[in-house]
């Protein structure tokens, strides 16, 4: 249907569309209404004909509003902080970095600073690795740039980063220990919109000896909690769309 509308005059009536595609009128109408709702199709008020909608032009740029993501995920982020005892961040890609769109303090009543709006490096944080792992263009861009060393453990070789990202895709979550800051570690998992596209990541960060076991691997219980929170946020995005 979209291809038909993208061709030739670009304006077609319901009967034309149904006949061209060999669909029953009712079926075509149902599909058109769905496409209209997501603004992929618009209807001309005077002629009643259909054409491609403005949202198609932005298909590549606006997946989900950052403030909407915060609003939808706030309860799950709180739950993750309460369960894990660690601080929680939700990140989205912006301008070659992780933009922190939501931050929940570590629930120990210590003095902490709200980090919403901060930018974190993609290659050195768990949030960033998740965003890289599921975005081929982003990871290609990262390969072309120099990977800045932040600690002696930061991954600076692109081949190494590639291997790690493959691992992230395989296990469905990312970890990092002392790659961003000495003594600190983080764990993150992907948030998807309906259809499966990863639009953000949710994760915890804290002292490396709290987040990792004696072999330096992220603790399994914490990983499970992070993955569960990411799945809950993903489900809530399906529910309300």
């Amino acid at each position: 249907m979209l291809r038909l509308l993208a061709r030739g005059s670009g304006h077609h009536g319901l009967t034309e569309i149904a006949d061209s595609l060999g669909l029953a009128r009712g079926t075509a109408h149902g599909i058109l209404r769905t496409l209209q709702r997501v603004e992929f199709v618009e209807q001309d008020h005077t002629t009643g004909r259909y054409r491609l909608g403005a949202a198609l032009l932005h298909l590549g740029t606006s997946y989900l509003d950052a403030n909407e993501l915060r609003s939808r995920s706030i309860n799950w982020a709180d739950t993750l902080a309460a369960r894990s005892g660690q601080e929680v961040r939700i990140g989205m890609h912006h301008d070659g970095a992780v933009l922190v769109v939501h931050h929940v303090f570590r629930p120990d009543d210590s003095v902490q600073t709200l980090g919403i709006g901060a930018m974190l490096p993609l290659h050195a944080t768990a949030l960033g690795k998740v965003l890289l792992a599921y975005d081929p263009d982003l990871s290609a861009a990262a390969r072309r740039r120099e990977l800045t060393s932040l600690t002696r453990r930061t991954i600076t070789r692109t081949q190494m980063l590639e291997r790690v990202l493959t691992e992230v895709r395989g296990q469905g979550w990312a970890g990092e220990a002392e790659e961003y800051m000495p003594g600190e570690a983080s764990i993150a998992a992907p948030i998807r919109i309906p259809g499966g596209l990863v639009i953000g990541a949710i994760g915890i960060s804290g002292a490396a000896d709290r987040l990792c076991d004696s072999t330096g691997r992220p603790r399994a219980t914490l990983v499970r909690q992070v993955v569960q929170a990411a799945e809950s946020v993903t489900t809530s995005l399906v529910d309300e769309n």
Partner: protein
Amino acid sequence: MAIDQGTTSTRCIVFDQNARLVAVAQREHRQYHPRPGWVEQDAVEIWRNVDRIVPQALRQAGISADQVVAMGITNQRETFVLWDRHTGVPIGRAIVWEDIRTEDLVTELGKKQGIEEVRDRCGLPLATYFSAPSLRWMLDNVAGLRAKADRGDVLFGTMDTWLIWNLTGGVSGGLHVTDVTNASRTMLMNLSTRQWDPMLLEFFGVPSSMLPEIRPSSEINGRTTRVVPGIPITAALGDQHAALFGQTCFEKGSIKGTYGTGGFLLMNTGTELVRSKHGLLTTIGYQIGGEPTYALEGSIAVAGSLVQWFRDNLGLIHSAPEIETLARTVKDNGGCYIVPAFSGLFAPHWLSQARGLVVGLTSYINKGHLARAVLEATGWQTREVVDAMNADLGVPTPVLKVDGGMTADHLLMQFLADVLDIPVMRPLVAETVSLGAAYAAGLAAGYWPDLEGLRRNWHLAARWNPAMDARHREDEYANWKRAVELTFAWARSTPSN
């Protein structure tokens, strides 16, 4: 376990000892609008919803009834239902707090002798919002009701009372009780004695036989015999009072603000009954055991609903949270202010004829500035209420504890801190209303030892520190106040009917 009987839905939430949420079950109920300004609900539908969600929450939590330490009820305030004592069948639908059918009756009652005394005794101004005028309306307008009520065949209850009566057996021995916070919203309770006041009953023409017994918030002393039998019902509180308790605002001078459709600010004034000289309501904060804790309340009629209006009526955003994205496309309000007096202004002005306005329009103003003005309106209205609270108590409050859906708006929360010039703090458990009811219930049952034990469960999830230049803040506040004055001027120039 908390049952939160709200305006649009009823929820059952189970908490563990660390105040962490274990299970949530929820069901919405219908809103009836039989005539313009009338808002009703079906009390039987609400009761059936409770019947479904309690077992559902237990299943979700994977526990049995005997593992539930206690149940606390919290509810939309002022909404009430009448029912037949012998059959348990409601007489008409419940009349909701939003219902304004008593506008004329309220004007009439306002001219009656003794009206000054009424405000003094119950702490509330005469308004359609509270239960007594609507109760009077029913007694006057439902055929045969007054005679039936005088015979003692009719029971009155706010939603806590209705649910407790049903849960504890209904016609076969159901408890007919309410708590002080709910009773304090009827206009029939004397704030000092915390009992139904004969003068108030006389004023509104309400027979005392239909009223429930008033108990402290944590002394409900019931036990479920229906739905899931055997659960002790130990507490009841109105929703905003429960939020105050859930936010652990136990010290005198501490304030909580709940930001949803409207904004509800409550300040703990300790054991002292403070009569507001600045347009606030006096109410009972909560009563755990012998002595009540009083509170001052300031309500903002339009907060989140202004964002909804911006979305639905102007169509400038697709979803409510996008208002922040739009607001961030500009760096300030561009000199534009919106006063959302859609149906008058509540605290601290109480001017029902005021109507909303947008001022400061120039060709420079775009939708980003309007979005900012929408969010800032909630900030400035909060500032007005907090100023009034501080003036009444004589000491400035050190922080504002916030909850509700709008706390997800980062720009608004920062703006609140900026205009109040105090830190704004959001707790880790967003469900403060349910948590407050669970706390009161658990405290009564000995699950938590004392208030200090509850305070230890309160954890900070986010904190916004004030960062606005003092001069700029005062200039902006002055502009806002001028905008509010213009709504009064508009009200005066509009012929009233």
